[in-house]
């Protein structure tokens, strides 16, 4: 690059500043609202005029939020583990084995990744009610697995292609059993791709709203984003702004920390498959 003039330095710094400010303001607004007392909520300033932890203690002692939070974590983890497991098998086959129909499989995965979810809500709702899956954990886990799979297959097959599989043979020549060769050589190489995929699939499950409000009816299986809708204020006439903001912060902050911590992996995963998480 050419010499860096002071104007250029100022230009880039202000561009950086604008990006950071735009990304953060709506998040800081939620944090601010969650710390405001019910009267301070009525004041549009960014800095709360009266502070309280009451919104947090309120939602964190209420089963109306804790149970859905538990549902979100449980449903998200189970869906992620199963989806990554099944996607790994399929991606291994695509990357390593010769068999007809690979193109069809990838095409099918892409098609499902682009599916308008609402188009499935009506028929799945009917099917889930008939099978007794409505308002149960499996009722959400099964669709989440199905929509995690295309993402997983796409990203993992790209990752698996880049693993130097000859190393496995080399390890066997050196006297390793096939199992040892897999565990000691291949698994550590495959792990980063699987972690990336797991993060993106989990984010997609954690984020889902349309399936969560369509296939649940009580806190037995309702997930956290869907439960916020049902919060109530101090009286019928108060909008529960504070508690909803606190809940939004609680379900968002861990994800933000998570995203920041794994940012390299996430960027690699998003751009390898070019598939939306």
């Amino acid at each position, binding site marked *: 690059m050419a010499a*860096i003039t002071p104007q250029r330095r100022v230009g880039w*710094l202000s561009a*950086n500043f604008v*990006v*950071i400010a735009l*990304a953060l303001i*709506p*998040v800081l*607004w*939620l944090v601010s609202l969650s710390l405001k007392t019910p009267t301070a909520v009525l004041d*549009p300033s960014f800095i709360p005029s009266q502070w309280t932890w009451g919104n947090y203690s309120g939602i964190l002692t209420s089963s109306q939020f804790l149970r859905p939070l538990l549902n979100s974590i449980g449903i998200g983890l189970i869906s992620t583990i199963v989806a990554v497991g*099944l996607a790994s*098998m*399929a991606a*291994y*086959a695509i990357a390593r*084995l*010769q*068999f*007809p129909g690979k*193109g069809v499989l*990838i095409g099918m995965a892409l098609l499902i990744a682009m599916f*308008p*979810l*609402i*188009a*499935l*809500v*009506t*028929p*799945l709702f*009917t099917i889930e009610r008939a099978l007794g899956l409505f308002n149960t954990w*499996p009722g959400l886990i*099964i669709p989440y*697995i*199905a*929509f995690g*799979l295309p993402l997983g297959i796409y990203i993992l097959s*790209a990752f698996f*292609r880049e693993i130097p599989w000859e190393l496995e043979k080399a390890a066997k020549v050196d006297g390793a059993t096939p199992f040892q060769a897999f565990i000691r050589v291949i698994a550590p190489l495959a792990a980063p791709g699987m972690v990336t995929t797991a993060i993106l699939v989990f*984010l997609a499950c954690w*984020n889902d*709203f*349309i399936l969560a*409000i*369509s296939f649940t009816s009580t806190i037995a299986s309702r997930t956290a984003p869907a439960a*916020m809708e049902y919060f109530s204020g101090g009286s019928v006439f108060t909008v529960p*702004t504070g508690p*909803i*903001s606190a809940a939004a912060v609680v379900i*968002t902050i861990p*994800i*933000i920390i*998570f*995203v*920041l911590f794994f940012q390299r992996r*996430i*960027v690699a995963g998003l751009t390898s498959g*070019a598939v*939306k998480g």
Partner: protein
Amino acid sequence: MSTTTPAVTTKPTPAHAAKKGKPQLSEGARAERRLGFMLIAPAVIVMLAVAAYPIVYAVYLSLQRYNLALPQNKAFIGFANYAAVLSSQYWWQALWVTLIITVFSVAITLVLGMLLAMVLHRTLFGRGTVRTTSLIPYGIVTVAAAYSWQYAWTPSQGYLSAAFNNAAPLTNQVQAIIVIIIAEIWKTTPFMGLLLLAGLSLIPEDLQNAAKVDGATGWQRFVKITLPLMKPAILVALLFRTLDSFRIFDTIFILTAGNNGTGSVSILGYNNLFNALNLGIGSTISILIFICVAIIAVIYILGFGTAAPGSDIGKR
């Protein structure tokens, strides 16, 4: 669960493989095929069960008169549901709202995403911090972000409403759609920026420098070198963003619940199922949305040519 995720080793694939196999296939190649089919079988079965079968079932339901409130009136009525939906102003209004949101949010996101990608690519100071911070909108739960926008635009409570003279944009059709588009742009620009950044970093630096030596201005270099070389990355990003934007639901559901003529086709489908309990009409809307998405995908894939996603798999 047991019906959709069977054990790996059971089930139908070997017969399938044997039938398709050519006679001169060696034993090893045949075994490899069999293993391949066995490994993909569970994933294929789950995807077929949850995505393909319901679409077929939705076609069947869309040809029925079927209201959950009046189940005894269920009957085959041919294409009457389609006639009802396609002659209803609610469908056309929802489709227009969806198309407007999609076109504006995707177009603006493309421009802003390109700017973000340039900042991330070229900035010399604090690149890590900017990249990290710009991932926040991507990571935040859509519903949580939607609540932030809703409260920001609530008159006498929100900072944005206060900044615009106590405006109440969410009660007005055009203004509410603008707010929805802004929320959508904020949430999705980082994703667009990252995809474009991946394309941008593939452009050889020499090419840019050579053009600079030949006296090309920054804008000329952008139009003549950067854009053409980034075409595949741009098309992939646009395809995913367009299809994703077309199914917009969460943001509208929280911001306006589709009131004042701001509902998207997804909101219309949802309301038909859960407020009107009309499975026939709801399925008809599902099928029509599916057809719209297929049309969008086909238009893009024709535009892609050889750059279609999936065709690059072999190159990796």
